[in-house]
């Protein structure tokens, strides 16, 4: 494949990220299909964010994982652990074959993140916890004069938990500009549209009022995510809040924005159809990226 001399590195990078997003979606679906369980829609909505974080933004890898002066990640929306497993396997934290153990008896790979799995640093699953823990980690980094950053992805349904707002106040109070909270704003939760369940809008105004520097991004667009997250902090002295607008079930036409795919498992036919769509996306990507 030929590359233009200008933008070549960046083009290569985003091409790689786009490709990984498709591969991760295949891994997620395979995992959920095999396990006969999992959070399909939410994993597909946040996977592009995780992809960009782990492959472009954060300084986390199996080699530096035991060190404290690296970036840290907390999966606050614990239920879409399949997305995290897919990325961590690809990063070499554990052999990909272990994903066959997801949700199996006595397996470390349960339906929510736990520290039993290398690469995961906090047990989550109950909502509204991750931001507080991230605040503590960011505060420790500040106290010790370290330059590392703490990232967390929260679900938008999670925002009704009061603890999120307790944590938000403290993040701003302590000026944690090394904290990056990303909201997977897919607008769906298990009962229905987030605004019908409990209207939390205007989110930008709320988080801004709490003292965050707030930015919007298409959370399923790796180029946009790369551009945004290359420029941290957004405003010195303020914690960072990303409203990542995503589509639940993104990448599989019949799952997109469909409430039943919150934790539905694909049938044989649905699984085959999904793989066909992802194969087609891969082929399309090869074609379009050929011009670089």
């Amino acid at each position, binding site marked *: 494949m030929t590359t233009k001399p200008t933008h070549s590195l960046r083009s290569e990078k985003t091409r790689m990220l786009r490709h990984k997003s498709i591969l991760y979606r295949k891994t997620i679906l395979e995992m959920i299909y095999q396990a006969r369980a999992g959070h399909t829609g939410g994993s597909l909505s946040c996977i592009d964010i995780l992809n960009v974080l782990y492959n472009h933004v954060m300084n986390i890898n199996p080699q530096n994982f035991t060190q404290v002066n690296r970036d840290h990640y907390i999966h606050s929306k614990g239920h879409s652990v399949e997305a995290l497993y897919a990325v961590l396997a690809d990063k070499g934290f554990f052999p990909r074959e272990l994903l066959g153990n997801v949700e199996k008896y006595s397996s470390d790979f349960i339906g929510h993140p*736990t520290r039993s799995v290398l690469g995961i640093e906090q047990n989550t699953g109950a909502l*509204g916890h991750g931001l*507080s823990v991230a605040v503590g*980690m960011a505060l420790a980094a500040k*106290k010790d004069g370290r330059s590392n950053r703490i990232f967390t992805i929260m679900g938008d349904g999670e925002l009704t938990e*009061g*603890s999120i707002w307790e944590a938000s106040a403290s993040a701003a109070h302590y000026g944690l500009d090394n904290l990056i909270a990303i909201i997977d704003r897919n607008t769906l939760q298990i009962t229905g549209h987030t605004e019908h369940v409990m209207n939390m809008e205007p989110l930008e105004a709320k988080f801004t009022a709490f003292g965050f520097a707030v930015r919007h991004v298409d959370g399923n667009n790796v180029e946009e995510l790369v551009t945004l997250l290359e420029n941290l902090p957004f405003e010195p002295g303020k914690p960072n809040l990303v409203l990542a607008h995503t589509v639940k079930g993104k990448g599989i036409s019949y799952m997109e924005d469909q409430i039943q795919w919150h934790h539905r498992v694909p049938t044989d036919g649905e699984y085959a159809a999904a793989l066909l769509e992802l194969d087609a996306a891969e082929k399309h990507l090869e074609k379009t990226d050929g011009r670089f």
Partner: protein
Amino acid sequence: MGGSNLQIGKTNLDTFAQTLMELAAVDRDILVLTSDSRGSGRVTPFAEKFPEQIVEIGIAEQNLVGVAAGLASAGKKVFVVSPACFLTARGLEQIKNDIAYSDHPVKVIGISAGVSYGSLGTTHHSLHDFAALQSINNIDIIAPADNFETTQAIQAAVHHPRPIYIRFGKKPMPAIHAPNAHFEIGKAIKLTAEREKYDVALIATGETVTPTYLASQELEEKGITCCVLSLHTLRPFDEEAVRQAAERSSMVITVEEHSVNGGLGSRVASFLMQARIFRPLRIVGIPDVHTVTGSQVEIFNHYGISPQALCQTALGLLEKEAG
């Protein structure tokens, strides 16, 4: 406690705060987290002396515990200092998930525990904390009886490898231990003379150890032999000490500043039954009713947690067995 021959010391709360000052001076990784509780936790001098080692979270117990977990994951030795009533109820899910389940060795300090807040009422009482935390895996539980046990527990907590909960009150406590007493997390301390047989085993925890010990002195004066255990650590539970005390005694009385459900008494009963050590047993604590109003000592007296009442309880039980 009237008629006591014991030397009144400081409050366990002040003892805790002073011990923490000494420890923090030589260990800059020690952090104290408060929920607008630095005054009630007696850590205002700490905050003035070590402003970099105190973190105020405001009245937000869920965030308080979650932030503590994050700090501990980065290697800080975190003491969360907050009223036991709020900390172990409002913050319970964070204690369970962020600390115990996630294996961060945070030191959870429940101040003004039990009915220390007395007439402030049930909102301010923590009679549920032993029960709640005993049902959560991977958090040790300590209720020191006096200043000695408090100092020892706080010192031990600094390097304790697991999450730990320590709760105490705010009333001056007499010294019940001999100067050469030995404290170890998970090991009950026997307060009475070594004997092959006792009439009564009295097993108490926290600030009910004093009235229990005084009751044993009255009983001994009446010729009734007592084995008194200060079971400062509820978890890990000292099975060996409880087994020996019960096996050598004709009956067992447990005493605690906690609901009679799910605390020390329940734990002892469960252990003894399953170990096939069958003894008449009386669990003294706060019964399953709306708690009476009054000061800590008035509430204690109301529910029979006084030297005189415990003495009567023992005598009544002995009489019943004899009859």
